[in-house]
């Protein structure tokens, strides 16, 4: 049977007070897709981290800007794209140090990226700073035909 693909979009002003709305959006999609609570929580967190990065870094807390989240669901996975037009960054330049090292260096950066990569199956970036930056994350569903 052909896979049925559905797409959902949310556009919010770039302000951290909207993170809860973004999480609710992602949570609804995860639950509707039949994901378990712990997996939905991972999806929520990964998207929250991506959007927090955009709000605080790409847009420098400028709430006149907009963050777009697009979710595409099919039988095998949910794909989330977080889109902004901010200054972007080089994802390869973002370190992912151990928490122990961050504590001793008195830094906390890089944790969000680690969480995204830990909790999602794939994380990709396409950056055109000032034009369009797109972070794409994929979470695959466990095989449902294994009964």
């Amino acid at each position, binding site marked *: 049977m052909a896979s049925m693909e559905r797409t959902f979009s949310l556009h919010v002003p770039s302000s951290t007070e909207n993170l809860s709305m973004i999480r609710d959006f992602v949570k609804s999609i995860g639950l509707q897709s039949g994901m378990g609570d712990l997996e939905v929580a991972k999806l929520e967190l990964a998207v929250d981290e991506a959007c927090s990065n955009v709000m605080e870094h790409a847009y420098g807390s400028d709430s006149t800007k907009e963050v777009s989240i697009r979710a595409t669901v099919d039988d095998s996975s949910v794909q989330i794209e977080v889109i902004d037009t901010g200054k972007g960054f080089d994802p390869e330049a973002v370190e992912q140090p*151990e928490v122990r090292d961050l504590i001793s260096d008195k830094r906390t950066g890089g944790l969000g990226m680690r969480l995204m990569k830990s909790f999602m199956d794939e994380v990709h970036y396409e950056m055109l700073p000032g034009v369009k930056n797109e972070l794409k994350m994929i979470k695959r569903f466990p095989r449902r035909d294994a009964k």
Partner: protein
Amino acid sequence: MANPFSIHKSTEQGLSVLALEGYLDAHTAPEFEKAVQAEFEAGRVRLVVECSRLNYISSAGLGVFMSFIEEIRAAGGDIKICGLVPKVFQVFDILGFSALFDIVPDLPAAIQRYTEAPVKET
């Protein structure tokens, strides 16, 4: 509003208990940071962060634990973490917090932990 988060402060057997409730994210983390800062500045460095009503944490919330732990331990105190629900625990766990912080099941266990190991050895 949309990001409900609150902190209930109390004292248990000489320990400062901060009970977190709701959603700890980039929007609400500054409130938690202020609360820990206030305890530290008042010389109350034996802290328990009780999380049984905490529904959510992101890296911004984790960063608060990370940014204070060294000075609090240097002052002879610690931050014991208790009551984590599974979906919050998995965030601490994936980053290896269990090796760096005392994470215990509940408040009585946190109080007990202070008698056994006032500062976690890492």
